[in-house]
């Protein structure tokens, strides 16, 4: 039976021949259009103190940490995994960063130390999944729970604050008029894209995610591939931690990156990624991040009380997901078609 469904879905997809990016883009456009209706000055962008300001810029700016995490998440989900610990990794790497800044080390060492923390966390998760064969959701849940405790320990139970020109520049500074952190996202996107599409790594991750056993029998080192995927998402979360911690100039073990795993997973799914693994869509995942961020910004702007934030977000995301679901689309088009057919005859 599943064969038939596959064929139907395949046939339908081919007939439409729309690129996968269309639905998320449509959703984003709709949200932005509604924003303009609510607030006509929504699209206005101005330069204040040598930096761009405006609602659109704000969406991009605030979307940076989730974007960094979501790109890594897209890879892990492509390998049929998931990483629930990214929020805790944000906190831990932020704590490491604050500690190193207090140690008066050079920024290069601090960057490597912070990324190293993320990498270690990722490899820990990857080892549980790839070597010990623990289900990803449970394996990463362990670090999700314990990670904030570790971050608290690194912080010594306080919320250490710091001043660092370099990290303030990375997080809140700007190059020419454009916020530095946007360059960071572009850079990570470029690196990951090169890794996925200009080496065979992407093919290997997608093979492992789609059919691990077949991938192994084709000679792919499935463990190393899975391990690498978790290592990458760990480093992505550490980068997000750097941006968040640099922004607040303090390492908050309890609140840094809270709920970021949920936003990242949602962004991947909005971007067309399947939790059953198989394909990695970096571009549409970023669109997914923008949808979520635009929603948050719009709700705040519209004057709705903040308690509506999560509810409205959930409803909009449900609608987008329905639009993407082949079953739902076929049902809706069938409805329209029978309507038209009756009208004609």
């Amino acid at each position: 039976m599943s064969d038939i469904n596959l064929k139907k879905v395949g046939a339908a997809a081919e007939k439409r021949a729309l690129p996968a990016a269309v639905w998320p883009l449509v959703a984003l456009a709709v949200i932005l259009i509604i924003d303009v209706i609510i607030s006509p000055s929504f699209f206005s962008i101005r330069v204040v103190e040598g930096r761009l300001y405006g609602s659109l810029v704000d969406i991009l700016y605030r979307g940076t940490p989730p974007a960094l995490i979501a790109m890594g998440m897209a890879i892990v989900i492509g390998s049929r995994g998931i990483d629930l610990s990214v929020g805790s990794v944000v906190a831990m790497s932020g704590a490491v960063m604050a500690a190193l800044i207090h140690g008066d080390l050079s920024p290069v060492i601090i960057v490597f130390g912070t990324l190293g923390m993320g990498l270690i966390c990722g490899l820990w998760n990857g080892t549980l999944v790839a070597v010990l064969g623990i289900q990803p959701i449970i394996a990463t849940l362990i670090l999700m729970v314990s990670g904030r405790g570790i971050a608290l320990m690194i912080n010594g139970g306080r919320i250490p604050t710091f001043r660092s020109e370099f990290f303030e520049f990375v997080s809140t500074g700007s190059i020419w008029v454009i916020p530095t952190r946007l360059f960071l996202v572009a850079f990570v996107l470029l690196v990951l894209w090169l890794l996925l599409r200009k080496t065979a790594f992407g093919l290997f991750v997608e093979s492992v995610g789609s059919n691990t056993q077949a991938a192994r029998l084709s000679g792919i080192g499935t463990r190393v591939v899975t391990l690498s995927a978790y290592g990458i998402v760990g480093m992505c979360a550490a980068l997000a931690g750097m941006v968040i911690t640099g922004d607040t100039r303090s390492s908050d073990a309890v609140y840094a990156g809270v709920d970021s795993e949920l936003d990242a997973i949602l962004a991947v799914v909005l971007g067309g990624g399947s939790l059953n693994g198989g394909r990695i869509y970096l571009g549409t995942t970023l669109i997914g991040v923008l949808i979520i961020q635009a929603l948050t910004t719009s709700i705040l702007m519209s004057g709705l009380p903040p308690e509506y934030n999560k509810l409205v977000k959930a409803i909009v995301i449900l609608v987008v997901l329905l639009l993407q679901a082949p079953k739902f689309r076929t049902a809706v088009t069938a409805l329209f078609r029978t309507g038209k057919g009756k009208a004609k005859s």
Partner: protein
Amino acid sequence: MNQANEPRISMRGITKVFPGVRALEDVSFTLAPGEIHALMGENGAGKSTLVKVLTGVYQPDAGTIELDGQPVEFASPVEAQAAGINTVYQEVNLVPTLSVAENLMIQRQASFRGLINWRRTRELARKALQRLNLDIDVGRSLGSYSLAIQQMVAIARALDRETKVLVLDEPTASLDAKEVEALFTVLRDIKKQGIAIVFITHFLDQVYAISDRVTVLRNGRFVGTGPIAEVPRMKLVTMMLGRQVSGQTSDHPPVDSIKTDGAPLFEAKDVGRSRYLNPIDFTLRTGEVVGLAGLLGSGRTETSKLVFGAVKADSGQIRLDGKPVTLRSPAHAIRCGLGFCPEDRKHEGLILDLTVRENIILALQSKRGWLHRVGEAEQNRLASEMIAALGIATPDAEKRVGQLSGGNQQKVILARWLVSEPRMLILDEPTRGIDIGAHAEIVALIRKLCREGLALLVASSELEEIVAFSHRVLVMRDRSKVKEIVGDDITQSAIVEAIANS
């Protein structure tokens, strides 16, 4: 067969069009009560589509269906079932973790005020199985029984409803000879009750063993129908293929091509794994095909997997080019020049989400490592070369491999290994679930590869095939090699004898 009987099913002028494909065009099919009617044709001939139209999965674009003389239209499988048309699919769609009784009585448990009466349910289940002369513990989970029993349970479930027509889609694909015989006994019994059976298979022997009539489809069109006694084998094959079969598949490879001298490429000595495969010895030379024959569970697949390193051997020694190696993993085996087409294409072979092109270059890519990506131009060239060389029927290399038919999927896996340029290729059941046309092509391909100097180890449950391409045959039984037959001594009867007596 009483032809004067009113037909139970009469399908006329059935046409079904899918985007880009005419799956059925003006096909007619009649089914009399109490007959076993074989439905035959190559992959893509339209057998499955016709059955799905009959069982309400698809609605025809044109044509009529009559059941007992009354025109019917089925909007869904549920409606077809209500009318008495039941289907047992190739892949048994039961729940292996539930008990036999639960599987049988799903949605129909005997209940008392909304609570399930388990004793009564089990009793009903037992009764349902008794119709098939099957006496098993219905409380045990279905998955703990063999595939044959699972198949019987599926049939019992279909029959337990009011059944006029029973459709069996490749019911024997995963059964061994004894199990097939048991199934046939049941089918003959059901037939006596006046139920009409549609039997889809690609085993010619079975068609002749059990069918009353046969209908052949080709490329979505009706080719012919007739009592099986009046359709000789050659005619049936010709109807299906639409061309004379060139070269009998029972031909031997020429005797002079048998290699007895020269250093072996691959030597296995006492290679085994406890509770998996008893130690086995064999050698394989360049340009030689060694067949692995035996019944289901005799150790054919186990041998293939140990040799490839997919399962680690815990005893014995393997030599490649005379040098001892320990194959740690498939990746290692591939770097040593081996390739392996597994029996279970869907689960161990194909990456269904990926395209034909990506599937084809996968083994070559993993041989080169992730840093040395096979360039786009090279990927496209390799894919289109293989699509042309093996005759893979796909509109283009970017189609998802899951959308191809079984035979073409098999060719994609073969292509994957051919582009990785192995020196030795292990094929486990390369023709399983493939129609007869693709079957002959793959046998021809095996011979060609062998002439080009590849060493091949081919496991197969089809003796004809083994005889057709092997220079040597290892006969397996109970996870051991029981006999090695060489050259002219390789005949079907010699292999059967070895399986039965040694």
